[in-house]
């Protein structure tokens, strides 16, 4: 395990016992990060640009059937399979444990996307439009990605940066709960909790100690920073 050089190791907990699958987080992410509007054709080609998707699984058969929801976003792996394959270092690891993507370095080989076991990287196969005056909604904090560039969830790094500036100005560290990505901020059931895993007293660090904890595709050894908590009960369905 490499040495921790930053006081932060950002991570997220997704409590599947709370998540209702409502999709509020998906729209929050799209709004915050200037994620492109994709039409039917593009989605039919499997090229939806959403950074965060809700997987829906049917388990069992009528009448003993259940539906399960699984929000999937970039897992910000500590040993990220997408990083070493990028020939131009566009996919990189930052000291806070974030898996970053430098848009203006990306040359569009899509190796990273192919190597991601969670299929959370999305590629701009098209040049996306915001018909006038819809472009007014675009956030000035985020670059609008052009055709040929790979993109993905950043844990809303612009918010983390701003929180760091604010905290730095006051000579302190970011407080627990002070910064959250757009998805966690809006989630009605508070299924998504974001915070500093390096701080054992943070809410996310406490939740991660839950016996309900698991990670996606743990056997691949990617060491994701996103932890899931199993849905409890539901024994009768």
């Amino acid at each position, binding site marked *: 395990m490499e040495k921790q050089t930053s006081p932060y190791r950002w991570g997220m907990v997704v*409590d599947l016992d*709370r998540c209702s699958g409502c999709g509020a987080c998906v729209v929050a992410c799209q709004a915050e990060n200037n994620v492109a509007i994709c039409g039917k054709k593009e989605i039919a080609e499997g090229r939806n640009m959403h950074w965060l998707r809700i997987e829906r699984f049917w388990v069992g058969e009528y009448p003993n059937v259940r539906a399960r929801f*699984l929000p999937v976003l970039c897992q910000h792996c500590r040993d990220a399979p997408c990083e070493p394959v990028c020939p131009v270092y566009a996919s990189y690891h930052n000291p806070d444990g974030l898996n970053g993507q430098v848009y203006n370095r990306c040359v569009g080989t899509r190796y990273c996307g192919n190597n991601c076991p969670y299929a959370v990287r999305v590629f701009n196969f098209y040049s996306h439009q915001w018909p006038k005056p819809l472009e007014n909604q675009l956030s000035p904090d985020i670059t609008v990605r052009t055709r040929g560039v790979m993109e993905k969830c950043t844990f809303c790094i612009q918010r983390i940066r701003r929180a760091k500036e604010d905290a730095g100005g006051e000579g302190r560290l970011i407080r627990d709960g002070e910064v959250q990505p757009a998805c966690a901020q809006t989630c009605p059931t508070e299924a998504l909790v974001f915070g500093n895993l390096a701080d054992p007293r943070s809410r996310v660090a406490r939740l991660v100690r839950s016996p309900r904890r698991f990670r996606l595709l743990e056997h691949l050894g990617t060491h994701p920073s996103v932890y899931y908590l199993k849905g409890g009960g539901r024994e009768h369905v």
Partner: protein
Amino acid sequence: MKRRTFLQLGGMTAAGAWLSGCRSANEKLIPYLVPPDEGVTPGRAEYFASACRFCPAGCGILVRVSEGRAKKIEGNPDHPVNRGKLCARGQAILQEVYHPDRVPQPLRRSGPRGSGKFTPISWGEGLSLLTGQLRTLQRERTTERLALMTPQLQGTLADLAARFMATFGSPHHIRFDLLAPDWLRAANRRSFGQASLPWYDIAGTRYLLSFGADFLEYHLSPVHYGFAFGRMRQGRDTVRGHFTYVGGRMSLTAASADRWMPARPGSEGALALGMARLILSESLYDAASLAANGLRPDRLSAGLEGYDLPRVAQLTGLSQQVIAEVAREFATTPPSLAMAGEMVAFQENGAEAVRAVQLLNVLVGNLNRPGGVYPGGGPVAGPENSFADLLALVEKMRGDRMGVALIHGDPLHAIPQTTGFPEALGRVPFIVSFSPLLDDTALQADLVLPDHAALESWGDVIPLAAPRGTVIGLMQPVVTPLHDTRQFPEVLMTTARELGGGMAAAFPYQSYQEMLKETMKRELHPAGGIDLETVWVDLLRQGGLFKTEGKRGKGYRWRAEAPIPLPAEPRFAGDERRFPLHLQVYPSTAFYDGRGAPLPWLQQLPDPMTTVVWDSWVEINPGTAAGLGIGFGDLVEVTSPRGSLRLPAVIYPGIRPDLVAIPMGQGHRGMGRYAAGRGANPLVLLALPPSETGPLPAWNATRVRVARISKEGGLVTAGNPEGSYRGELIEI
């Protein structure tokens, strides 16, 4: 002067300048957060508080504004309804402002009705056309020939509309809204003698039993109850609240349940009574509660004689063992909570079925206690049968007794055709629409006077579900109006002023904003004598008036004269042999009743249960589909006694074999490029079952048949129909 102060002043002047566009130059925009001390970065976004009126839940919002443009909508953490959270729809209303197909100025029809041909005109011309029509009614002393159709308005706007119509001299203000909780008010009046809406303490309950109440999607206040649901599950150290859902279709809400009971459509009330009878016979009831409600267990038992377990099992299609188990769990896990929702109320016997569910709460003592149900703090009064008002209006329109219809909303899309509304409206000589987009109703209008988008408007929003006290969200124009539009209430007021006389006298205000201030003044201090200006600035900054302390009102108590609820055998429209399947229409998670369809974020949002994007579909049980030779994505035809529709099929494991379901929201003729011509509107299929007492709003009582047409359904899903193609993700 500190740098920060300087920049703040600069910002305020700019804000003042924007607002002169909506005739309120003396107003400054009050940011929600005072920026931190080290200064305002030029270009750094500011937040302004407002309220969401997309659905009647009325959540509080904060709008991030940068350089005069709205960038993002977030929940207002101080608002007691949504506490900083928002649903997908509330966040997407941003796209209402910047929608590329907004009506930029008033339009006059220039081709035949419905041709979509309009000529742009000025507001002066538009208003004189409207006042001209109204003057004619006044001159001919036929003011009752004016109709106003709106959704169920609240607060100042409701007051304004009522005053407008009363002063003008017309009783025809119709507030019909398919999803409005009239049915719940009516049931509460019949059972408890008060029509106030309930507030459910979901966060505090240990056993939640929902009869078709989809409180995580659209029922009353989805964000409020979604928040509570998270707490019910994992917010307490030692208790995880249990959730059982009753309903023939597994809704998004039902998907979160521990147990799903797919009762036969129309049998939900009988199921509730079967449980009640079992609770009585096994003496699991709360004797104190029955006594407090003036009910005697022996009499109740006698009244519920017919609801023995074998019969209820046969009526509902559920096993006796499961029914008994749930009844016992419900009675022995206090505090428990039973809720009834639209999917039960919209059955032909829905009115009594809802009351049967209420009886369960009385029986085990869930009224007025933590973890149970209280009379809520939302709007006290509201329509209890706006459907009857609608039918009466349709009758008058048919008889050529209406001269002018002013319409806010899109009733041509949102009112089922079986009411006869579309043809009847066609007979009204002059139709005015206030829609910001050319929706289905605006396309039929003679005059379109486009309203502002929500983020450009003033208003007050009274949430449907609030625990107690007074909660009023304030809407303020957080951005300058983009087009030459005017706010609907402002237009009514200007019209009244132009008409002069009593009409002008009824509105002694400079602007709608001033009227709004008056309302708030009354709310704050009925006796008067406060410095409103200071308080007003505070209210705008925080997003409204949130008084959540104080005593609760009078609790629920079963009325002495209230009869025991006895839902009759359900009736359906359509003969069982010709139409073997039941049809359920349900509000779409993304579009609600259809008002979200023009927003591309919502079109692109995969439907949570099916992952379908940009479309509508019909859900069919896998067994039923196999029997009909229908595969996933096939184009099928759904036929009811009233009409037929073609749309793609989704094979849906969570639905009864004798039921098919179609989401509401698509199938618009107009409403801009993202919605027009997309998908199908299931309301055209609805027929109303026969009834001696006149038609009932039984929207889930239509029978249909389904036939396969071709392979080309054109359906696109964001996910694999079976779940993720990376199946190993499943470890849950």
